[in-house]
């Protein structure tokens, strides 16, 4: 069973160590916060990913089953019809 990387956006402070360890799947935005490529983590990166989870200074990185990945790790379509989880609680 595969896993995916997930960043806790509230915890993340943009240290960027994850991107150094996993440049194949993580790049940094203009302010140094990680952008994680969506989908399953390649199996040969598993050990490095576990290391990245361990070294994150604020413990913001997690390995989770892909179905538990929240808040779209890859940029969403920008069309306004995208069904956004609204602020009105449905």
């Amino acid at each position, binding site marked *: 069973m595969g896993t995916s990387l997930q960043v806790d956006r509230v915890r993340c402070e943009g240290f960027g160590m994850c991107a150094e360890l996993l440049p194949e799947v993580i790049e940094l935005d203009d302010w140094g916060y990680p952008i994680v490529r969506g989908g399953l983590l390649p199996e040969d990166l598993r050990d490095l990913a576990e290391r990245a989870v361990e070294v994150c200074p604020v413990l913001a990185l997690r390995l989770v089953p892909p179905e538990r990945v929240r*808040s779209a790790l890859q940029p969403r379509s920008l069309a306004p019809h995208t069904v956004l989880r609204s602020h009105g609680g*449905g």
Partner: protein
Amino acid sequence: MLATAPSATIPANAPQAATLPPAFEPRLLAGQLLSAGPESWEQHRSRLGELPGASARRAIIATIERSGLIGRGGGGFPVGRKWRSVAERSRRGAVVVANGAEGEPRSAKDRALMHLRPHLVIDGGLVAAQAIGAEELVVYVGTEHQEAVRSMRRAIAERARRELVAIRLVEAPRGYVSGESTAVVHYLNARDARPTFARERPFERGVGSRPTLVQNVESLAHAALIARFGDAWYRQAGRCRTRGTALVTVSGPVLAPGVREIEYGLTLAELLAMSGGATAEIGAVLIGGYFGGWASVEDLWELPLDPIELAEAQLGFGCGLIGLLDAEACGVRATARIVGYMAAESARQCGPCIFGLGAMATALERLATCRPVPGDLENRARWSLQISGRGACHHPDGAAALLTSGLRVFRDEFDRHQRGSCAHPTGPVEG
């Protein structure tokens, strides 16, 4: 706005009702004149009758699913499916939150509903509580909506001793994100109305660690009527593809702006006529709220105000805001104001939202005041991609989508601002 003769048959299992709300007339806003103020418990009960008894409760989720009722907070998620998700996890006793935070600055429909028809909101909360096995109903009302707070408090006092479900009112702090579902749960648990990034969603682990249904007050009010009159009755309204009626807020240069109940599928032209007609030439429409997007009047004029039709046109019904922009107003300034507001309303927890949305708002403000610096528009495109989907909640995504729609609708105006001039320097600022 007064209810007229019933035009639908009462399902066999429905309780005896004094009158059936007519299918193509206002439903949520039926009853006494709106100018008469809040409907009392006595008036409410004599107009609509009692809620169905315990035996009907198990079937209610299937009835709501068949009705096609969608959420009215802005996301449009199917209500029945949401209830089923919570019901499947509610062994420990769930919680229902009737969400009336309504932080959307120009929307007024939730506060109007809570003020005028508070018992319909409570009824809906009780139906949801019965359906998912909840013992507690929290009515969460934006603290800036004091008329709604007072009306809901009075209604809860009229009901509290009669109901098995505990009902309490909590005032939601001001703020655009206070009504986001994880922020609601966070506030009720820890008095902190910022969204969270918990492993488990509110429907799994919410208020007091119990499965929690956070549902917009209008969605609940519709559910209260479906519980009485059935899904077939609900589906009689709707002129296009989405069934039912919806509350909308019309703002901008019309003779009679404000909250109205419409059938889904009405056109903008019809809604404007209902609102007394425009008092100025309309150039563009902000549809769905600050989480929605801009549309040109030409594109929207004949388009049904129907969530499915709008989605196909890359627009959204959202919270039902129809914000009309004067043709003499500057679309760039109107867009910059909204994005600036969204940046200021960030909960300031997630880097992409603090920095990305902030940078976008700053660049847009420069553009709006005709003082762009090289790269503003190019950066804008990259930042939009960088911030979308990268917050604990979707606040930054909403702002990015709004801006994208603004760039499409006001393309010529944006180009002109990029060159340092505005076509409407003295136009109205509202947007």
